[in-house]
């Protein structure tokens, strides 16, 4: 394991410490070492926007803390949901009296811990509502969308929800638009090499050289099928073939495209991939209003890519366009 770590058991704490030190202009620690917040949070008069999840997805989740984005984030162990206590503390750190929107991904640990945290917050009189991201088309048929995982589409949900809150939206409005954002969003990933949880010390799944895993999960959950490795252009087509009919997206639509590496894929290759995505969408008269290409939601040192599309209406478009200032999401 060729890693830059100390004792793997301390990895998350040391990462959080380094992150807080490096970004003290934007981020503040809280009494709970597993909760970070936007320095200005709770922002007076604003609905709090919170998320949380396992670590190992840098820059998710803490990289999206900031102005017009997230107010507080609960930090879990590598690939493991944060504790209910951390979600609860994050909710408290974000609450300015107008309620808190917890916008998180559909994993059973997160569902349970958010549920328990919400119970605690209720007792404090904090109004908490949730949106559960389920943008990964590969993780269940469209008829069972509630079973689908949340993946890189969460970034767009945070962007939209964070913007609505920043513009003064009520809790119900923030929840409604974040729900709309994720309902209009579809993602799929392709994995090319596995990753290793440092405390485990070896990859807990394999992808044979010369093959690729279509629909892989962000924690290495196996995909829907294993195929012979394809060219970048074919991968782009394959991802769009899974995504486009699912919503469906159609000619005339305006979309946001987010191409995220899974960690170890050179960013140059993400642009090669995006080039073909743009070409195919162009041919179908689907207009890319805003492309994001980079490492937005990773899986440790996995190699591969996820493609996310969000269909815009006027409201979503305006919220996506709003400036934001987070460590990993600076838009002006």
């Amino acid at each position, binding site marked *: 394991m060729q890693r830059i770590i100390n004792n793997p*058991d301390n990895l998350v704490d040391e990462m959080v410490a380094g992150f807080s030190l490096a970004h003290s202009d934007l981020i503040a620690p809280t009494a709970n070492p597993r909760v970070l917040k936007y320095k200005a949070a709770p922002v007076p008069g604003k609905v709090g926007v919170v998320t949380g999840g*396992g670590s190992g997805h840098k820059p998710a989740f803490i990289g999206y803390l900031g102005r017009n984005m997230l107010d507080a984030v609960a930090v*879990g*162990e*590598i*690939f*493991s*949901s*944060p*504790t*209910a*206590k*951390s979600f609860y503390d994050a909710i408290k750190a974000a609450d300015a009296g107008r309620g808190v929107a917890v916008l998180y991904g559909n*994993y*059973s*640990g997160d569902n*349970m*811990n958010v*549920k*328990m945290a919400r119970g605690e917050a209720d007792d404090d009189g904090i109004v908490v509502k949730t949106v559960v991201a389920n943008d990964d088309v*590969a*993780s*269940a048929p469209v008829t069972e969308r509630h*079973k689908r995982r949340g993946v890189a589409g969460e970034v767009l949900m945070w962007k939209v929800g964070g913007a609505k809150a920043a513009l003064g939206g009520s809790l119900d409005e923030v929840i409604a638009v974040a729900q709309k954002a994720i309902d209009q969003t579809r993602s799929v990933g392709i994995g090319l090499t596995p990753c290793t*949880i440092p*405390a*485990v010390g070896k990859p*807990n*799944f394999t992808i044979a050289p010369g093959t690729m895993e279509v629909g892989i*999960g962000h*924690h*290495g*959950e*196996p995909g*829907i099928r294993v195929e012979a490795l394809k060219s970048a252009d074919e991968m782009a087509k394959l991802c769009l073939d899974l995504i486009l009919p699912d919503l469906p997206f159609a000619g005339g639509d305006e979309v946001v495209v987010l191409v995220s590496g899974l960690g170890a894929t050179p960013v140059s290759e993400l642009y090669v991939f995006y080039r073909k995505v743009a070409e195919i969408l162009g041919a179908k008269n689907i207009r890319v209003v805003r492309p994001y290409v980079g490492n937005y939601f990773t899986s440790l040192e996995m190699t591969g890519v996820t493609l996310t599309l969000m269909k815009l209406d006027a409201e979503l478009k305006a919220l996506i366009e709003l400036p934001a200032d987070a460590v990993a999401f600076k838009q002006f």
Partner: protein
Amino acid sequence: MQYFSNAGGAVVVRRMIETIRAHKDYLGEIDGRIGDGDHGINMSKGFTLAGERIGPADGFSSSIRILSQVLLLEIGGSMGPLYGSFFKAFFKLSKDTEKITAPLFLAMLESGTAVVKELGGAEVGDKTLVDTLTPAIAAFKEALANDRSFQDALVACVKAAAAGKDSTKEMLAKIGRSARLGERSRGVLDAGAVSSFLILDAMAQQISEIMQSD
């Protein structure tokens, strides 16, 4: 009637802790086949922490409360809330009782399992720890209904737990990270089903060793 003493029952919790620690790598390996491979780490971390905090004055109830709180407050994942709530039920039902009898133990198992099912939404057949717990409780209950001893009921319970755990091997996962593997989830035990079997087995063995009668 058989019982074990609450005051002297910290060893039951300690025995669980030892077992989970000893099986850390094994649990990780099983989880790795269709999950993300961290079940051993998650469990061992929480159980170890709890072990460090259980003091000489602690009995069964206060020990299991410590375990429950560590899991709920410091572990996270799926296992933190599920096992945390599971053990919290044991604490709640036993905290005011010195002699822990078979009917009380049954009530704790039933209450803990009910919380697990409520919180996680899993039913028998979904390939989770519920597949271990449910038949184990049924066997324990049936033994009591047939007027068998606490000791005998524990043996029946562990036997059924083992069978329940093994039954997950051929199941299609319906919940958790491996839920959508479809056919690919078959042929592998469920990690939570295994850890819950280990927990029941450790409890049963230790309770047998400290079992008393009056």
